[in-house]
């Protein structure tokens, strides 16, 4: 494996013909648009090489960026920038895609048994600390009720490690925590309500703040989640310590009905207004969405129209030109970066087809972010990012934060130790060892 392998891997994914939806992580590298296309209809990418990448010698990879980006090193966490061997072929090469070869602590044994499972064995030629486990069996479960199947499987000793369906987290904690087999972690994510800010009835900051003030997050977390969520009073979550501002959203902490009603009146949201609340089915959101619906109806006199839909349809609804109202949304960071919470969700450069589906646009906000990218010190950058969040959330309430992202897992603690969650919320396979 050499620096060439990285170039191979990155070029392979960035090529337009690969139609990769994760290639955008490399958008900051020079030569990307030549390889991938500009995204405008009719754009044809002519290049076959990634001009921004070069390997002056087998142990050095040189990356030229199209604009300064102090967080580029974190972006390399993304699997899309993994090295690939010479026989990988191009992105459509199914043989390689079914049995990929990487440079991590484990390697695939056999191929990817679609919808059934994957077997991993230790990679003894790994360059870092070798893993302890000899073999890992991953079972692929259908996405319907997957968490439940996992958890039940763990209970009947079919699996050593599993997620937990939200309804059973209290039971899981009570059963597994005494045995030290319960993991609880606040991860790099946020659950929020996406708001369409250009169409009525929520196209004014006052209206959105009214909504936020009418929601009793504590009651929902206690009643529906039995306390297993952490209320969100910002968009950037606590794990990003240097950037986290618990007070940036002053209307997210406790409900204030008097103020909410006043803001609703001034924001053009009188009682009787119809507001839609769309959410995706199959994610276990039915309960809390109904709770919010009823709170808004009781506290602000609104007519809430609950709209369950399959995930793909929900996205379509959000992007429609006449989209309006609230949409359940969640975001998980691509890499440990505060900017990754603000830029993809709220920048004008991220408007659809990007992830800024609420269509929030604010020049000052974008300026602050651009400056933050060029900031010479971490401290300066943190200040700029915080100011940006204050603009988008504190002043404009472009999104309504609900609760952060908490992850819970159970594992067989009598047999295993060294189990924790990594950044991608996956088990830390490389550190797990037998007791």
């Amino acid at each position, binding site marked *: 494996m050499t620096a060439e392998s990285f170039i191979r891997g990155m070029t392979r994914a960035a090529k337009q013909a690969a139609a990769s939806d994760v290639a955008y992580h490399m958008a900051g590298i020079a030569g990307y648009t030549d390889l991938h296309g500009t995204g405008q209809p009719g754009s044809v990418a002519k290049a076959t090489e990634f001009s921004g990448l070069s390997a002056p010698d087998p142990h050095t990879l040189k990356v030229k960026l199209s604009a300064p980006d102090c967080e580029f090193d974190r972006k390399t966490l993304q699997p899309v920038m993994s090295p690939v061997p010479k026989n990988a072929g191009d992105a459509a090469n199914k043989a390689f895609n079914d049995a990929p070869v990487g440079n991590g602590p484990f390697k695939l044994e056999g191929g990817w048994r679609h919808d059934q499972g994957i077997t991993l064995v230790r990679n003894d030629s790994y360059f870092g600390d070798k893993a302890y486990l000899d073999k890992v069996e991953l079972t692929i479960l259908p996405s319907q009720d997957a968490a439940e199947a996992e958890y039940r499987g763990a209970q009947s000793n079919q699996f050593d490690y599993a997620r937990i369906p939200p*309804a059973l987290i209290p039971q899981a904690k009570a059963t597994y925590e005494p045995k030290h087999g319960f993991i609880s972690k606040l991860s790099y994510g946020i659950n929020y309500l996406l708001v369409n800010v250009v169409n009525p009835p929520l196209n004014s900051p006052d209206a959105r703040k009214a909504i936020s003030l009418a929601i009793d997050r504590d009651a929902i977390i206690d009643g529906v989640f039995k306390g297993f969520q952490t209320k969100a009073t910002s968009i950037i979550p606590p794990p990003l310590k240097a950037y986290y501002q618990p007070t940036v959203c002053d209307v997210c902490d406790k409900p204030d009905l008097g103020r909410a009603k006043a803001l609703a009146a001034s924001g053009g949201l009188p009682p009787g207004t119809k507001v839609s609340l769309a959410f995706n089915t199959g994610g276990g959101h039915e309960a809390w969405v109904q709770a919010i*619906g009823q709170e808004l109806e009781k506290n602000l006199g609104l007519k809430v129209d*609950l709209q369950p839909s399959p995930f793909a349809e929900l996205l379509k609804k959000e992007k429609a030109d006449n989209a309006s109202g609230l949409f359940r949304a969640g975001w998980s960071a691509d890499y440990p970066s505060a900017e990754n919470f603000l830029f993809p969700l709220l920048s004008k450069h991220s408007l659809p087809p990007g992830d800024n589906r609420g269509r929030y646009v604010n020049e000052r906000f974008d300026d602050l972010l651009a400056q933050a990218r060029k900031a010479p010190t971490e401290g300066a950058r943190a200040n700029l990012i915080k100011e940006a969040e204050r603009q988008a959330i504190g002043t404009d309430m472009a999104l309504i934060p609900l609760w952060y992202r908490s992850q819970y897992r159970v594992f067989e603690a009598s047999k295993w130790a060294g189990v924790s969650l990594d950044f991608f919320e996956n088990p830390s396979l490389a550190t797990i060892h037998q007791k």
Partner: protein
Amino acid sequence: MAMIPDDVAELAEVAPPVGPGTVGIAVQTQFGDIRKRFFRNKLAVIGLGMVAFVFLVALLAPVIAPHDPYEQNLSATTQPPSGAHWFGTDELGRDQLSRVMFGSRIAVVVGLTSILLALGIGIVLGSIAGYRGGRADSVVMRVADAFFAFPVLIGAILIILVTGRGVLPVILAIAIFTWTVPARLLRSSILSVREAEYVEAARSLGASKWRIVTRHVLPNSLAPVLVYGMVSVGAAIVAETALSFLGVGVKPNVPDWGNMIASGRAFFGYRDFLWVFPSLAAVFTVLGFIFVGDGLRDALDPRLR
């Protein structure tokens, strides 16, 4: 093509015997006999009682339910049954007893309406096929075959995904995939009746086709169809709950047994009362309809007893 599966099909061949001429009186005596036989059957009477009970609850729910089935109480979620809440509370603190009561309304409405619709479509198309015969018959039967072969649940899901969720789409979806059986039953029935003597007699007397169909053919061929209808209401109710269970039924906040079972299932082994009560309600209702259906079938054909 395929034969009718149900044991009800037997009835198509055994339309109640009627003498020539005195159709009116004969039909009346039949009803008296049928009613007597039905009520002698203990299970059938029990079934009737069960169905009547469910109807009553459905009708009186707004009056007798102790709480508002939509009212949430976030400080008392998933509480086990207690004095204040006989069936406990669900994950939003809503009273389950009230929700089960209101759920009966959906069950009854969807069950009855979808089957009535299916019967309606089936009777119309079945009589066209049976009475007109020939081309009309083949066309209707081919269409019926295509719908019959289409898996009911999948078809219903697809329809609902297109139209959106709600009570009306569910009713429509169920009716669209169940009309084929009554149609076929009626057609067989008509085929055997239309050659009967009394129809010949009426025809030779100059009665119009319409009169023959409505006065003579239909009343005597409807019996198996009605029995099928009664038994199917139970199946329709189960289908409705299955659709809610799969997440394509009525909207999630509506008190509906399928919805309750679906969300309660997540708490299996932990808070079982969440799914047990709506399941019992569903089973109770379906059993009632089955007993009545069985009773009707036995009463209509004394030879089976």
